């Protein structure tokens, strides 16, 4: 019942979670549900699949999803409208500058310059787009599992 009511809302803000779908992203919608016996609100998570052919959202992104006029498949009911907060690559909406946790990147650079430059320092301008190490060294885009069977082949997603 709860999922039904969520699926009727046209615009939803959600959290992208790992999934194996190639054309869609799995989005977690967090809501608070009233327990009528205790008269208290409890967290309730609903999961929806949003159409995302170019895979613009990565695991952990905060995204805005829109209800499709017609269901693409029985599972895919929404589409990704916009990535609001890119995980680990946040732009301050007021100044338009990049932020790392609670500091601007240019402030951190200024402090580093006072100490003396280092040739090994990470350069943001030369860095490729997020996700270039997917399936190589970074496995956050999939759900890992505990290895339960020895097949003789390599199981990259097994922990």
């Amino acid at each position, binding site marked *: 019942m709860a999922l039904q009511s969520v699926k009727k809302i046209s615009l939803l803000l959600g959290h992208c979670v790992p999934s194996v779908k190639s054309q869609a992203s799995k989005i977690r919608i967090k809501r608070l549900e009233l327990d009528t016996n205790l008269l208290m609100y409890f967290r309730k998570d609903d999961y929806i699949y949003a159409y995302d052919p170019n895979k613009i959202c990565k695991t952990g992104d905060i995204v805005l999803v829109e209800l499709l006029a017609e269901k693409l498949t029985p599972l895919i009911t929404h589409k990704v409208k916009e990535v609001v907060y890119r995980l680990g690559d946040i732009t301050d909406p007021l100044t338009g500058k990049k932020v790392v946790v609670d500091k601007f990147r240019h402030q951190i650079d200024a402090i580093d310059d006072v100490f003396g430059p280092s040739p090994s320092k*990470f350069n943001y301008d030369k860095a490729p787009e997020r996700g270039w190490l997917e399936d190589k060294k970074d496995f956050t885009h999939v759900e890992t599992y505990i290895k339960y069977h020895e097949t003789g082949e390599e199981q990259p997603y097994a922990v």
Partner: protein
Amino acid sequence: MFAGYSYVWLMLLISFTIECGLFIMNTMKKALQFSSRHPMLTFKNVIVRSYAFKSNLKIKWVRPEKIPCFKPEKSGDLDPMPEFDKSRYQLEYANCKELENADPLVKRLFSLEFASRSKITQAYKKDLVDSVKNHTFDENSIEARIARWTGTIRALQEVMENHPRNRRLKVQLKEIIDKRKKYLKFLRTWDYKKFEWLIDNLNIIYKPPPPQFHWITRKDSLRKLTQKYCDDKVNEKLSAYRLQLEAEQPAFLEEKIRTLEFLRQEQKDCGVEITIKQEEIDEAKKSLDELRKKNEKGKSSS
């Protein structure tokens, strides 16, 4: 008299056997009703016991070998601690001016050749930190700390290989591995690009933790394997059906073109309003051509 008694006994026996028979029939009927309510219990109209179910599928389960938590396979380190250049000076004498004009024997004495292992590890850690540091004196930024922990982990992993029963060391190593993993997780949310650059530079694999932690059991593993087997079967059948339908496509399109052309001609001849457009026929011809080209390509590649 005797005969009368025996007759009564016989009648009682018969009625008893009939009752027993009825009782058994009833119970069987009930069991069948029960099994029809629970379809898992019947298999080809044979009642199957519900407990200690044994599958007919011949799936062989191989229990994966346990990998200790401190091993590089678990910690995600792709590189071991390298062979170190022992002609280098120890870290505290690296910039010593007196050593520049010193005797070769003295130089050798201050090199890593005669130093303890901890000095080598120290130099290795310094190298790793230098490869990622933010500024000249950077030792406390998150990337520098992760690099230092990586050096420690790799050095201790080598020691663990030689002393596998050292439990204090094992605990120490596990704690550092977990700490590094925790901070890698944080770094990813703080600064994704830096996280990727760091794990690439230090050659570490980062895998997120699984949704639940549980121990591996035979029953659960067999369940998963059976599910996988069934899914594979379904996919196999679906792909076979798809191939069959695709093989029928060219013949269908030819038939479609022929029919449409015939109908269009008929409509023209009879002088009725022409509902079938030429574009429809052209489109069907085009898709037929594309299909043939695709099939030829598939044949030549295979």
